[in-house]
């Protein structure tokens, strides 16, 4: 239905979106599908906007960001700009793209500063270790040498989990026994990476909830210890967020940012039906770049974050993803 709409060109790079769409949210529909049912007459009124507001809330966009978007659309409606459903769709798309574009800053790794240390942080079960596996594969593919540091010394078999990712990607893993000081492990890894002239060091850490001050201090210590070796290290402190999170993601981003100063965010598990609307709420609140999105459990299931593609993928309904499995 919408695939044949006249604003088709608004959805650029159609082929890619179809593919992403097929993974992202498992081809499930979101805004557009509902919109199509919403305004069968094609007339846009307050009621349609109310319903759209609900859809945004149900996508975890949060009250604040949702209200901002809907208020803007309401103004357009008053100016008689929302003549039909396509106009509404374009307006919505534009507002979301406007919010997300500022955080679309891809990760670049300069060749000078070696090793480039990426410290992965986040709450329990967010996808840190898996994402390290994915990043390792990407970096290797682009010709960089990679090393992993098993900084999660707390969770049972966390070290072995990372070691398996090391084997899969054929990259070295620096580890100590369970219960070791994570700062010491990462420090060791840094030394090893330095002496072997490694390009990128990916450091895993144990999951922790942002309100656990002692554990947050532990991360700050890791940062300090690294900075003593190289004042730029860690060059990238990356927060991993699960797309299934609700509004608590805001608290996570704020508190990890306060404690460490974040350089990047990765959103995982977007292959589910969770909409990852928290990203919109987040982008409105704090300006930390979103680097990648995770769309599956294998090493290849990761993409660079692109605001327009992301919005299009979210807005494209089932109809647009006929390649979905």
């Amino acid at each position, binding site marked *: 239905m919408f695939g044949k709409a006249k604003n088709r060109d608004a959805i650029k790079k159609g082929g890619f979106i179809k593919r992403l769409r097929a993974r992202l949210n498992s081809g499930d529909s979101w805004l557009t599908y509902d919109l199509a049912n919403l305004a069968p007459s094609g007339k846009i009124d307050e009621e349609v906007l109310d319903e759209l507001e609900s859809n945004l809330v149900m996508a975890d966009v949060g009250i604040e960001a949702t209200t901002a978007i809907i208020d803007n659309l309401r103004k357009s409606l008053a100016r008689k700009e929302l003549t039909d459903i396509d106009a509404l769709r374009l307006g919505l798309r534009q507002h979301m793209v406007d919010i997300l574009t500022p955080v679309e800053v891809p990760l670049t790794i300069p060749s000078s500063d070696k090793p480039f240390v990426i410290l992965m942080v986040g709450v329990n079960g967010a996808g840190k270790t898996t994402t390290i596996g994915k990043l390792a594969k990407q970096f290797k593919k682009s010709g960089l040498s990679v090393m992993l540091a098993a900084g999660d010394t707390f969770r049972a078999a966390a070290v072995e989990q990372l070691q*398996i990712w090391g084997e899969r990607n054929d990259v070295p893993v620096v580890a100590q026994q369970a219960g070791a000081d994570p700062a010491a492990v990462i420090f060791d890894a840094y030394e090893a990476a330095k002496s072997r002239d490694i390009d990128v060091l990916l450091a895993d850490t144990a999951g922790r909830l*942002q309100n656990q001050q002692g554990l947050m201090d532990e991360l700050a210590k890791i940062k300090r210890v690294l900075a003593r070796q190289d004042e730029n290290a860690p060059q990238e402190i990356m927060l991993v967020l699960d797309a299934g999170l609700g509004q608590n993601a805001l608290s996570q981003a704020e508190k990890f940012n306060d404690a460490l100063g974040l350089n990047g965010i990765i959103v995982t598990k977007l292959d*589910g039906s969770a909409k990852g609307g928290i990203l919109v709420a987040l982008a409105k609140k704090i300006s930390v770049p979103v680097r990648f999105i995770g769309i599956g459990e294998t090493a290849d299931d990761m993409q660079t974050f692109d605001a327009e593609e992301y919005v299009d993928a979210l807005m494209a309904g089932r109809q647009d993803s006929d390649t979905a499995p």
Partner: protein
Amino acid sequence: MFENLSGRLADATRNLTGKGRLSESNIKDTLRQVRLALLEADVALPVAKSFIEKIRERAVGEEVGKSLSPGQALIKIIHAELVSLLGQETKPLEFRAQPPIVIMLAGLQGAGKTTTAAKLARRLITKDKKSVMMVSVDVYRPAAILQLKTLAEDVGATFCDSDAAQKPVDIVAKALDEARRSHVDVLLLDTAGRLHVDEELMDEVAKVHQAAQPHETFFVIDSMAGQDAVNSARAFNEKLPLSGVVLTKTDGDAKGGVALSVVEVIGKPIRFIGVGEKTDALEVFHPDRMASRILGMGDVLSLVEEIEDKVSKEKAEKLAKKLQRGRGFDLSDLRDQFEQMLNMGGMAAMLEKLPIPGNVNPGMLKDAANEKQLRRQIAIINSMTPGERRFPKTINGSRKKRIASGSGLQIQDVNRLLKQHVQMEKMMKKMSKGGMKKMLRGMPGGGMPPGMPPPGR
């Protein structure tokens, strides 16, 4: 960040002053605030909507009692409705069947299934004196089987080994066989995390269930989950005959509205909550505590326990008796309160836990929040005569002057203290009238001045 519900309610209920009945029009604004607060707590939108409808039905026409303001009456209804929605008190684990009793855990990736399996094992072993075997059919996540094995050793459970090359149903068959032969009481079955939209893996978990025939099948869900949680809960519930829910990571600062959504959508009770990463961090679920948390009322009950620990029970009881006998709350009582606050390390920590009740000036209370301030206030009261403490009304201008110089402070400080006393006295009067327990539950924020005895004691 966002205001929590208690803040919103305090605003909304301030306007809700008219006596008599709750009506459609006088609760409208409050209900709007409740709806927003529920959404901010990640309660799924459809669930929040139907919840608000229920509240409206129950509230309209409701007679407002003497001790409660209409706002408080409404909050009481909301809290009660939340508690009833969240379900019964925890049902004990099912042990009546022929052993081995099989308990299976399922859920999304990273939800906390493996950790919960270890926590349950530990509880079964130490508390219920059962012998426990554990087995993992997670053949996907790297080192998942080893993770469970390590945890099984930690908690003293037998481990039935499996490996990633095996088929999950084959692992189940082998584990059942081993469990029977070694006569263990309970077999705990950990599964791989999966997305509910992954049809292949959802079929697989159904087959595992079919093979294991568990007595309990728990859906494990992260308390930080957002709106999509209802979709996953529904899908798992359709695929598996769930017998309960385990809510994990409640030691975080998420408001946990997902508890409400999941229970409402699948109609199965929450059985346990995870309160930390260690294997002893598992608690049975209390609906009333979760209701308070979702409403942002602070965890009133745990606060009560804390006070109970730290505050002299005797003094609190004495005060309660005195109030009940109709004797007023005088300045020496206020001094007791201040001293107890000092013991608790100041009031600031408490204020955080306990949102300010709507009818007390928060600025006033906050003023009392620091230790220095508390010591000054005690000094002021110490400079009074016993008669003045008993009858604060007698403290006139010249007495104030004397008290101020006696405590090395200003007249304004004395005035401020007296004002504060009047406020506290008012609140105490209300509380002694309404009955402690009733007030505690009825007030927005479960407001209770520090040092009061816990309800029902």
